[in-house]
């Protein structure tokens, strides 16, 4: 898989986690692609922390409106039934547990479900934006990312970068597999048959609990 295929593969698998009527917040980058793979038979309410629910696809020349953007500042549209609100209500929704699933990228995730994705001291200081609130408040936190960074594991025994939140990640989806984070550690529950279990373990610093994982089925 090339880079784009990998990203789409991950995004398509994440999209299978949603249930009818879920309120979902998709982070910037890879998670944004998840919107392209939403199932047709259920209703997903995409929330954007800058103040809307009912996030629709990118506008064309006809329905472009500079006053409608997503949390990345990109032009978007509003689906029928959607609505706008201010930042305080937006984060009441997020912090208050009214978001069912948030999908975020990450630099690091560890065995305790902690994650680090907002700062590399001395190098990159974008700020946490809404990410800290999202991972703290959402009922389910899914990390969507490539399994490694230039060959170096991103799924660690313990994060080394400053944390975004402690013990909040429930699931990790990568091109290699799907992992659930539980009390006793990270369980590999699905694997991409393009890789052997051994290859996946080698690409993971954290201990992977492997107990009859099933094959990932993703149609991109």
């Amino acid at each position, binding site marked *: 898989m090339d880079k784009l295929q990998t990203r789409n593969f991950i995004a398509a698998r994440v999209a299978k986690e949603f249930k009818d009527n879920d309120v979902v917040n998709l982070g910037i980058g890879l998670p944004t692609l998840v919107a392209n793979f939403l199932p047709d038979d259920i209703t997903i309410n995409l929330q954007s922390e800058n103040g809307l629910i009912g996030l629709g696809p990118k506008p064309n020349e006809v329905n472009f409106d500079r006053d409608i953007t997503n949390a990345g500042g990109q032009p978007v549209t509003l689906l029928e039934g959607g609505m706008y609100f201010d930042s305080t209500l937006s984060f009441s929704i997020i912090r208050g547990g009214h978001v069912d699933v948030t999908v975020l990228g990450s630099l690091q995730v560890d065995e305790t479900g902690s994650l680090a994705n907002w700062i590399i001291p001395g190098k990159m200081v974008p700020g946490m934006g*809404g990410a800290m609130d999202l991972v703290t408040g959402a009922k389910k936190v899914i990390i969507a990312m490539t399994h490694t960074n230039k060959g170096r594991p991103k799924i660690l025994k313990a994060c080394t970068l400053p944390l975004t939140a402690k013990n909040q990640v429930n699931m990790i989806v990568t091109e290699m597999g799907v992992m659930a984070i539980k009390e006793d550690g990270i369980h590999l529950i699905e694997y991409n048959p393009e890789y052997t279990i051994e290859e996946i373990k080698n690409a993971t610093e954290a201990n992977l609990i492997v107990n009859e994982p099933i094959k990932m089925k993703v149609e991109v």
Partner: protein
Amino acid sequence: MKKLLNINNLKDHVFDGMSIMVGGFMVVGTPEFIVDELVNIGVKDLTLICNDAGLPGKGIAKLITNGQVKTLIASHIGLNPEAGQLMSAGKMECILIPQGTLAERIRAGGAGLGGILTPTGIGTIVEEGKQIINTNGKDFILELPLRADLAILEGTTVDEYGNVVYTKTTRNFNPVMATATDLVIVGAREIIKRIDPDNVMTPHIFVDYVIKEEL
């Protein structure tokens, strides 16, 4: 209209070293024409409170480029690389706050609260130097109210009394900032006679001056 202010008189209401909240999210909901006038005036040593650092060449990024900002309080500066560079070079102080906490702190400042307890940031460097309070068996960070001298907001529609409506995603931080500063100046895209009393987003009592944008 009583509260109408000519943009040329904005200079009478700003001073070096002041703190300014600027509405908007990646410039959406920022009254760029008022920010541009702050650049013209050249008021300096500002503390800016805004969701982000604007976009290169747009919104408060211009004040940052022009060296007028001493301290930036924001949740995210990633889309304006210059902000990060100035911060790393020690030329601009930058205080990063989780977005929901930023909204709540401003709200507390406007609502007369002494602070709020949020779970956001527990176990991270955000909690450093702050009081941790346990309620109902869970740890929370005590976050303090945030206020400023001036708010610069973008009202899509303002009525003759100063009531404001913000359209679509331009709303974001605008209504909450309207409650938390000593002086509130709204840049209006349009001024109408009267907004439906059910749909007012910022009541006129919060608005000191309205500057009409030349479109």
